[in-house]
């Protein structure tokens, strides 16, 4: 082998490791979009507005439905022919007489999105989760939604005319400093967390608790999320189980506030306890997973899987197609209610009125009930839109989950809280009649019942110090502690090292002798 080739080999080895190192931290972008030629075609010249949107992967209807997929509702048929992005461009040109070009790109995790923004990517409209919205808000990176956006008298303001009063209430009452969330963000999808489980192995009673991951009876048969925030919430729920389900707390008028405070406990003592608990969990579960949980659930490798409700719906749908029944249970201690919301970025919009108008119109267009239905049908998550005076969302629910005429064993399912915002009173107008199994299946995941909503807690954002402490806790859980290396481990490693050194010395000596 000649010298050049060896050099090349050594270099490629180095390059390989470099790329591996670099790849570890770099966010993955599914679709590359060229950075917009900055406002060269801006609305000022009366031409085309460019709107740079960054959304989760597979989080919008891309159209191209088969004919038989058309959803026939009493108030019209919903059908996805083109992608919603393209439909928006057409609709905007038609309605406002302005051409808009959407540059659509995607991100994989909230942290990826944040790193992309830090690295200098510019977007006008992004769709992060609750805590990331709070983080961006606290860093003053967001543009407030305009007053016009909240004006219900404009027929094209589909968001404010159709958003669920319950969701809007959460957005109004959650504050960062003294500003409500709703000032900067419009909801898109929402859901709760829980376990998808195999009803042949577990009962709902057994599955509906955060301590499931730690249950030795299901050793190496459960997957949980490879994600520090979800794991933290689970651990707190499990550790505080008794306190959270105590009747004295549940009956307390301030129950919800106290629940939320308890679930957002980031005291050093709690973090230490969570670390111990998660270490135990790590030794008990099948694995932490980022994306394989759904498939493993369907192929039967595991019997339960910690999931976000939207993915739970997807998992159960896929299993149904294979003739395999899975259920969904929400832990009795508490559940994490999460939101993904649209917000406009300061350095993207940069004071451009035409751009901001297009961004708000994009949110409104996605909030039009038929488009919300298309999204829900396509991605399995739950839209924040209840439709307002438009009955189609409820009709879609009935179309999707309602029991057949004359079916026996049906139960009422009250969704009044979502349509009217009242979590206390029964609402016969918004009560579905469903078959009993739906209480444990897609419906329970997509539209959790009032009892689940009562015990739901949002997970606040952590301050940088808390975040650092919790992340260190997570690293500690995931790393192999050097103190755990057994004696034989050290001996083996020492022997191997000694062997390598001896070999290399021996080689060199031989060569010197030969020389």
């Amino acid at each position, binding site marked *: 082998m000649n010298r050049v080739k060896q050099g090349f080999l050594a270099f490629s080895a180095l*390059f390989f490791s*470099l790329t*591996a190192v670099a790849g570890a931290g770099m966010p993955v972008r599914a679709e590359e979009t060229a950075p917009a030629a900055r406002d060269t075609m801006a609305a000022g010249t009366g031409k085309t507005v460019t709107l740079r949107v960054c959304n989760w992967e597979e989080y919008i209807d891309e159209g191209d439905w088969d004919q038989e997929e058309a959803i026939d509702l009493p108030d019209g048929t919903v059908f996805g022919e083109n992608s919603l992005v393209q439909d928006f461009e057409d609709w905007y040109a038609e309605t406002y007489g302005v051409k808009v070009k959407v540059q659509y790109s995607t991100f994989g995790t909230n942290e990826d999105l944040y790193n992309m923004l830090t690295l200098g990517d510019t977007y006008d409209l992004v769709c992060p989760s609750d805590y990331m919205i709070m983080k961006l808000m606290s860093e003053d990176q967001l543009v407030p939604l305009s007053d016009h956006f909240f004006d219900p008298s404009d027929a094209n303001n589909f968001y404010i005319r159709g958003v669920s009063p319950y969701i809007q209430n959460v957005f109004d009452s959650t504050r960062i400093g003294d500003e409500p969330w709703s000032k900067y963000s419009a909801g898109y999808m929402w859901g709760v967390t829980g376990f998808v489980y195999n009803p042949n192995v577990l009962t709902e009673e057994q599955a509906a608790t955060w301590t499931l991951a730690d249950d030795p009876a299901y050793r190496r048969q459960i997957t949980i999320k490879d994600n520090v925030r979800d794991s933290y919430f689970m651990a707190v729920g499990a550790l505080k189980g008794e306190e959270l389900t105590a009747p004295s707390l549940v009956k307390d008028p301030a129950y919800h506030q106290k629940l939320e405070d308890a679930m957002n406990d980031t005291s050093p003592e709690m973090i230490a306890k969570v670390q111990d608990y998660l270490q135990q969990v790590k030794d008990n579960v099948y*694995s932490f*997973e980022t994306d394989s949980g759904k498939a493993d659930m369907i192929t039967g490798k595991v019997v339960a899987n910690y999931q976000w409700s939207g993915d739970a719906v997807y998992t159960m749908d896929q299993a149904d197609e294979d003739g395999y029944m899975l259920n969904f249970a929400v832990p009795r201690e508490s559940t994490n209610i999460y939101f993904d919301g649209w917000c406009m970025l300061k350095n993207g919009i940069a004071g451009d009125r035409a751009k901001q108008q297009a961004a708000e119109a994009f949110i409104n267009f996605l909030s039009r009930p038929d488009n919300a239905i298309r999204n829900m049908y396509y991605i399995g998550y739950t839209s924040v839109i209840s439709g307002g005076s438009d009955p189609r969302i409820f009709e879609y629910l009935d179309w999707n989950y309602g029991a057949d005429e004359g079916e026996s064993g049906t139960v009422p399912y009250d969704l009044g809280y979502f349509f009217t915002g009242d979590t206390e009173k029964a609402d016969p107008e918004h009560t579905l009649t469903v078959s009993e199994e739906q209480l444990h299946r897609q419906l329970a995941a997509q539209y959790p019942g009032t009892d689940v909503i009562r015990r739901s807690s949002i997970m606040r954002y952590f301050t940088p110090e808390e975040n650092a402490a919790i992340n260190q806790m*997570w690293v500690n859980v995931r*790393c192999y502690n050097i103190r755990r290396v057994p004696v034989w481990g050290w001996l083996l490693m020492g022997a191997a090292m000694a062997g390598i050194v001896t070999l290399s010395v021996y080689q060199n000596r*031989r*060569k010197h002798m030969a020389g």
Partner: protein
Amino acid sequence: MKFTRKSLGIPYAVYLVLFVVLPLVVLFYYAFTDGTGRLTAAHFIGFFTDPNALGTLFYSFAVAMVTTAVCLLLAYPVAYILAMSPLKYKSSVVMVFVMPMWINFSLRITALKEVLTLLEGNLARFPFLNAVVGMTYDFLPFMILPIFTTISKLDGALREAAMDLGADEKQTFFRVTLPLSMPGIMSGVSMVFLPAMTNYVVLDMLYNSTYIMGSLIGSYFAAYDWHSGSMIALILLGIICVFTLLTDDEEAGAQRGGALL
């Protein structure tokens, strides 16, 4: 500008600056500064005082060493037999061994996952074994190729001379063939060992929930701590450099020895 042979190197030089030198500068900057831009060695000290970071280094070393050893034990006999065989189309046979590399990596590991599940029943019981099997499956061709190339280029006359001088088969192999194929082994080892320390995708996909160096770096980046992440990447780079220097020395020595012989 006059076109010379040197001009041909320009694209590569540009590439080198853009994708090797610049990132390295950035890496150094982040590794040795804190959030406010001040110089600090805290991340460096932090790494060597954190039992978890050191444990991860140990674990990565262990995975990489076992993987490399297994690869070497599997690859050397194959490469040797192939190189020595009188087969006419040796390169085609080697291609068969390299062919798995043409199939998408994640597809291969997904398939392996199913096979391992079939064999082990529950994958989660043998996380270390799974990591080693996955990496071996992935990196074996990188070991076979350089060893095969080195052995096939060996001058057969050297072995004949050894035999003529009274060495038996065993002695010829251990005293002539094996030392002369050392450069190939070294190339193979460096191409397997180093990626094996960082390729955490294999561990993720095969349900090993313990961090190795690559995943540790990733976790710091996900928590917006680019400084600690960069420092770990840099330390890894240091290890790689030392390793490369060592093997380079070996190879240079072998060349000299070869020339003298």
